[in-house]
């Protein structure tokens, strides 16, 4: 049975899809068969971030409606044999995600995969609730600013009440916090909430802190999950995140303001 992980946030633009791609790639690189499923019907992005947009033939909705088999719709990643992408439909309506349909697809995926990563759309509407309904674990992606923190908090409330685990009275979803777009400089200037502030409000296990980084945008544009860019701070931070998810204990990095010495200024790192 696969572990179903939902990447969610409530707020848009915080890095859910980037995180989904990174986590799925990280798990697959460590040898786990991993599928990453785009729940953002109508606004699909995961295929772009994963760099497989030209290979999409069938999508999630086709599978739900029985118009294609799961194997036809799954796209194998070219960089990692254990990673598969199930893209969202760009043309259908979110309502096409039925609880039974989603349950069936996730169930089928669970038979052959170790991890199923669900990339949730923003908001708390149908698509988002479907993405989290069957989850075992949830990674709540939050930016260090008040509206994102509140939306995450709201999302945590929904996770606690509207998931299958909550409804059947099973062990609740394991919730993790991932702080993204963290800029130590702006925190130091008081322009951003600090890690401690966010943790105090959300009181969650911290899975990682991803620094604000140009490499994220560059990777997205290139269709390469940023975790593959092991040179970049964001790539390394995502690597740490995957390790922590799998139970390793690592210190959190990239939390301090980097002193710009003469040397680094000169060489521009």
């Amino acid at each position: 049975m696969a572990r179903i992980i939902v990447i969610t946030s409530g707020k848009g633009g915080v890095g859910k899809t980037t995180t989904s791609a990174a986590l799925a790639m990280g798990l697959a690189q460590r040898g786990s068969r991993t599928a990453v499923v785009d729940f953002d019907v109508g606004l699909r992005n995961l295929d772009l971030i994963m760099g497989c947009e030209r290979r999409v033939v069938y999508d999630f909705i086709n599978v739900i409606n029985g118009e294609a088999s799961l194997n036809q719709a799954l796209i194998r990643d070219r960089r990692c044999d254990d990673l598969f992408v199930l893209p969202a439909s760009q043309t259908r309506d979110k309502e096409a995600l039925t609880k039974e349909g989603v349950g069936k697809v996730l169930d089928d995926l669970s038979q052959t995969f170790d991890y199923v990563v669900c990339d949730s759309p923003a908001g708390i509407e149908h698509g988002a609730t479907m993405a989290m309904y069957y989850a075992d674990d949830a990674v709540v992606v939050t930016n260090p600013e008040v509206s994102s923190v509140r939306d995450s908090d709201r999302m945590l409330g929904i996770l606690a009440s509207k998931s299958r685990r909550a409804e059947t009275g099973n062990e609740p979803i394991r919730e993790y916090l991932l702080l993204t777009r963290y800029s130590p400089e702006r925190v130091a200037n008081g322009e951003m909430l600090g890690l401690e502030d966010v943790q105090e409000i959300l009181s969650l296990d911290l899975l990682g802190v991803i620094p604000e980084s140009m490499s994220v945008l560059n990777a997205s544009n290139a269709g390469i999950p940023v975790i593959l860019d092991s040179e970049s701070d964001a790539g390394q931070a995502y690597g740490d995140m995957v390790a922590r998810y799998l139970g390793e204990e690592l210190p959190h990095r990239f939390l301090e303001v980097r002193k710009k010495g003469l040397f680094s200024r000169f060489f521009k790192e």
Partner: protein
Amino acid sequence: MAARLMPGNRYFAWLRSGISMLLGHRDRGSTKTKSMTAKSESEGNAPSAVVELKAAAFTLPVIRLLDTDMDTVAEQLGAKVDQAPEFFRNAPVVVDLSALPAGADEVQFPLLVGLLRGHGMIPVGVRGGNASQNRAAEVMELAIMSETATRNPRQVTTKPASKPAAPAQTAERLPETTKPVTGGSFKLITHPIRSGQRVYTREGDLSVVGPISSGAELMADGNIHIYGPLRGRAMAGMNGDTQARIFCQSLEAELVSVAGRYRVSENIPTTLRGVPVQIFLDQEVLRIEKL
């Protein structure tokens, strides 16, 4: 004072009635109404029902009569209404007779009803009256509100018909010492309450071990205890129990209320923010005190 507006508390009427709908909750200041108007005689021959019988709870302002002298009542009520005429316009009200001294003169219901109507209110019923008062009220087509159905079980209330109302008056003034907690529930929550979540404990206390996020709501008919920061809303004494209190380890609340008396974050002094406090009613004034 001849007439007093009870902390039936319309401040929270919107909120409380919403909660009532949600939870089927009835409170002391409210009356349970059953729409018994439509008897489905067509049953059997007309397939599609055009009426439904449903029970719903409403929060109504209660006018508590302390004296039967209608001139004084008129004077004092007029002064109250002048402060907020919009508040009373078309507002259904219930007249509470339980505080009238024993042996008081007959309540002149025609005068009283006329007076209330004159101020734009819609008198709908009485409660807490004795047999003769109830009969007089019925003549004026006022409903006799059942005390038992709406009574707070924690409250020691005298039976309306059998006993004079004087003890009730003292009971209302003095802190209640005898409190048989019957049928009270108790709720303990050991996880954070998130934005958008609401928790309600009916007829009992609510304890939370964990933070209450901003945008979350805690409600209890009894006390609320929070072992963590309170950043959302906490409402104790939802059924009008003025003895209820709120305790928290760090007050960062958006709103706190006891028996409908509330304070929003703006009106909480900065010296009391972020510290452990208790919140209670003192002479109908909401007080926040450091612990």
